[in-house]
């Protein structure tokens, strides 16, 4: 499909044409007319007192008009068929049926994990009622699912065997492995898992109990966001203050940003902020607010606080003062709202935007390339194999790159934990495997500059 715009226009045209055609409702009308003719004929016969001649005349003269009606109906319908066919052709031309990658469904066995991701997505989007319906429905399905029952049955079998087994050595070893895995999971426990319980089993399902806690968190987030939207920062400031230790550890200055905006908002006075015109509002109110609250920040933001205070002098002609940029609130509320969302989610161990949304969007962007690659692979007769790394590039917009990527300039390979980036004394960076290939004994020459180095002077770096 070369041009989506013209394709959509062509399709729209056919659809409009089809819409203009008298469809089945017109046929219903015509059948109605036939019914009326029948009733009229019947009435005529009854009115005549069941006269023999009237009866035969009435039915005879019904024949032609009814036949004509049916012919009209048929013509209508045939016309629609033709137009439908055109729409079909247009669909074939502009939206040819192409095979989706269907050789294997990597997600087929992941239903519990997908369900959990969906439930969390619905909760974070504030779709609380849909989320609880979904959690309930998937919970029921999980208990009814024959596959799960089978697995449970097998586990019972194993434990029953254990009891009678004289040498349960193998089982013991298995259990040890499982324990180790469990420990690994614990290491990655996030704040959210601490809230919602941890462990592999809980990871896979989201019980209603956990979801209630999440729901409570997210409804708090939405109510605060609603307040910010209506220019009320107090609930957000209160939240930031009660989490100030965690926020400061993250290097976030959300609390200060919020307080600063509150100062600015009060400063603007009742004509702008619509708050009561009293001593807690206006320039005086802002100053009062600053005196009561800014001490918390110590000397972390001395410069900015000075600017805010200095602005008092320019209160009458702020627009021409050097401080006008601080006092423009056009995007300020939207800005603090988005940094609030980010910090709130981060403290829960969640990304600010729904991961499911990002993954599906990225997936839609990468899909055409995946299909193209698969077609090429099939044409060449090579098998589609699942390795650690995709065999082709799937470029995404800049904002969808969350980690730094280092590709070794020599081997063109991405660095990994097994093949980490190494910085050599001249400051250039190579993948470890590349460096080993360059080694002559213990020495190597930098591929980018005349410098030489010793293997022991190369150091692993973390990018």
């Amino acid at each position, binding site marked *: 499909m070369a041009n989506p715009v013209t394709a959509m226009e062509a399709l*729209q045209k056919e659809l409009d044409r089809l*819409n203009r055609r008298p469809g089945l409702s017109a*046929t219903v009308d015509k059948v109605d007319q036939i019914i009326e003719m029948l009733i009229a004929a019947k009435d005529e016969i009854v009115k005549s007192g*069941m006269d*023999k001649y009237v009866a035969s005349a009435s039915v005879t003269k019904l024949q032609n008009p009814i036949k004509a009606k049916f012919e009209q109906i048929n013509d209508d319908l045939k016309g629609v068929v033709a137009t439908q066919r055109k729409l079909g052709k247009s669909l074939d031309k502009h939206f040819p049926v192409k095979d989706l990658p269907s050789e294997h469904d990597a997600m087929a066995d992941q239903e519990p994990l997908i369900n959990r991701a969906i439930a969390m997505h619905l909760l974070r989007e504030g779709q609380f009622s849909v989320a609880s319906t979904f959690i309930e429905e998937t919970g029921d399905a999980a208990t009814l699912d024959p596959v799960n029952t089978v697995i449970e049955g097998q586990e019972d079998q194993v434990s029953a065997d254990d009891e009678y087994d004289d040498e349960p050595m193998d089982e013991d070893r298995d259990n040890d492995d499982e324990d180790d895995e469990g420990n690994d999971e614990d290491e990655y426990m996030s704040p959210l898992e601490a809230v919602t319980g941890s462990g592999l089993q809980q990871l896979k399902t989201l019980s209603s109990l956990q979801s209630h806690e999440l729901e409570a968190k997210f409804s708090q987030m939405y109510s605060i966001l609603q307040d910010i939207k209506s220019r009320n920062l107090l609930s957000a400031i209160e939240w930031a203050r009660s989490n100030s230790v965690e926020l400061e550890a993250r290097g976030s200055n959300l609390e200060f940003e919020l307080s600063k905006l509150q100062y600015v908002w009060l400063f603007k006075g009742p004509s702008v902020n619509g708050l009561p015109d009293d001593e807690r509002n206006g320039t005086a109110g802002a100053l009062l607010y600053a005196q009561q609250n800014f001490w918390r920040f110590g000397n972390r933001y001395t410069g900015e606080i000075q600017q805010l205070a200095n602005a008092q002098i320019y209160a009458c002609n702020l627009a021409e003062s050097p401080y006008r940029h601080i006092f423009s609130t056009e995007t300020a509320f939207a800005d603090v709202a988005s940094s609030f969302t980010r910090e709130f989610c981060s403290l829960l161990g969640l990304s600010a935007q729904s*991961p499911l949304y990002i993954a599906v969007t990225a997936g*839609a962007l990468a899909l055409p390339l995946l299909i193209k690659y698969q077609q090429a692979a099939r044409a060449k007769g090579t098998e589609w194999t699942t390795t650690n790394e995709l065999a082709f590039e799937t470029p995404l917009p800049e904002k969808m790159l969350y980690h730094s990527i280092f590709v070794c300039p020599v081997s063109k390979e991405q660095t990994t934990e097994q093949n980490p980036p190494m910085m050599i004394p001249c400051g250039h960076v190579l993948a470890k495997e590349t460096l080993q290939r360059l080694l002559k004994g213990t020495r190597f020459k930098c591929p980018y500059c005349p410098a030489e180095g010793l293997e022991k002077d190369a150091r692993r770096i973390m990018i």
Partner: protein
Amino acid sequence: MADHEASKINHDNHLLLASRLFTYSDQPLLRLPYELLRKNFRTAHFTVEKDSTNFTKLLRETATASIDSKISPENVVQNLDTMLTRMRALKRKLSTYADEETRLYKQLDARVAHLRELSDMHSVDDVKYEAWSRKRLDRLLVDYMLRHNYNTSAQALANEREMHDLVDVETFLAMSKIKQSLQNGSVSEALVWCSNNKKELRKLQSNLEFLLRCQEYVELLRLNTPEKSIEAIAHAKKWLAPFQEQYPFTVREMAALLAHRPTDKDLPPKYAAWYSADRWDKLARAFVDAHNELLGLPTFPLLHTALSSGLSALKTPACHGTQTTTSSSQPGHSQTSMTTSVCPICSIELNELAKNVPYAHHSKSHLDNDLLLLPNGRVYGQAKLDEYAAKAGLADDKVKDLVTGEIYSRASLKKVFA
């Protein structure tokens, strides 16, 4: 960081991708209502043709007989009443089809409009793209829920998002009814569906009807009485024999089944399999496959397709690593607001799910500008170090590690050429 030239190519690429998107992932979006529209129309057309032939015949006969004085005026009126009843029945049927037609037109209009929104955008950076993409996600979620029988949730989400015309609730609910009836051990609903789609199923060379007829036969034998066995033989003659050529092996097996009682202790496994309870699950699956193939629906939810390609495209070696990289945002590891937002693959919603998919292939580095090496081996862009130092209120000659929080003097930093 990518230079200008590269980012421009990238941008064009995205433009192209966005525009080509719906040829793939949104394929069934227009196909399905179109196919349903045609099907609905064909059925209506067939009904009209059949009824009108019968009707005109009766009218003609009545008229001729009346002229020839073979029937009384009372009979004429009686026949007129019969015709009226038939026409009213036809009208009722046609009204149902007309309503369905209206619904499908509405769907097609809404879907074309939805896709036009996308075709009018010029890049994924378009502000409207996010809203569109969210709508797409909601569509895929409803589709996923319907395919997994989470029907209440699917309807709740469709209602909440007011997107009934963009999802196929009716189609899947009808399907799920038939599927459930099979799981409950009843073939009749599925057989009705087969006869309504006879032509198409024949074109697909589907063996669904045959399998259902076999099951009917097996159920008669299961009762294990002489009368039922005779009934089974009659059933086989009528319904299984016509498939002799197509499925000779199975038909022979069916015949052989007569020689065994379902209660036989040493029933060979291949015969026992026909009596097994999981036959019903298999039939349900066979029905779902035939249904989806017939309507051009993908075999598994598009959400799966989009997710597995998306998880891979986003995944990096760092996402499941054991060591924190400097751009790491793994939950549980110390992190700061400077290490940007949590990566969706590292976020606990998807981390486990992404474990088994390959990570993305990159042929170019994506790094910050002016990289500096801290004495602890960690590398950051200068701008980020400056910003974090300012936020932390450090003295001018100090920087702070964004992840570990260690403080170093600027003199101890080294330039990195990556």
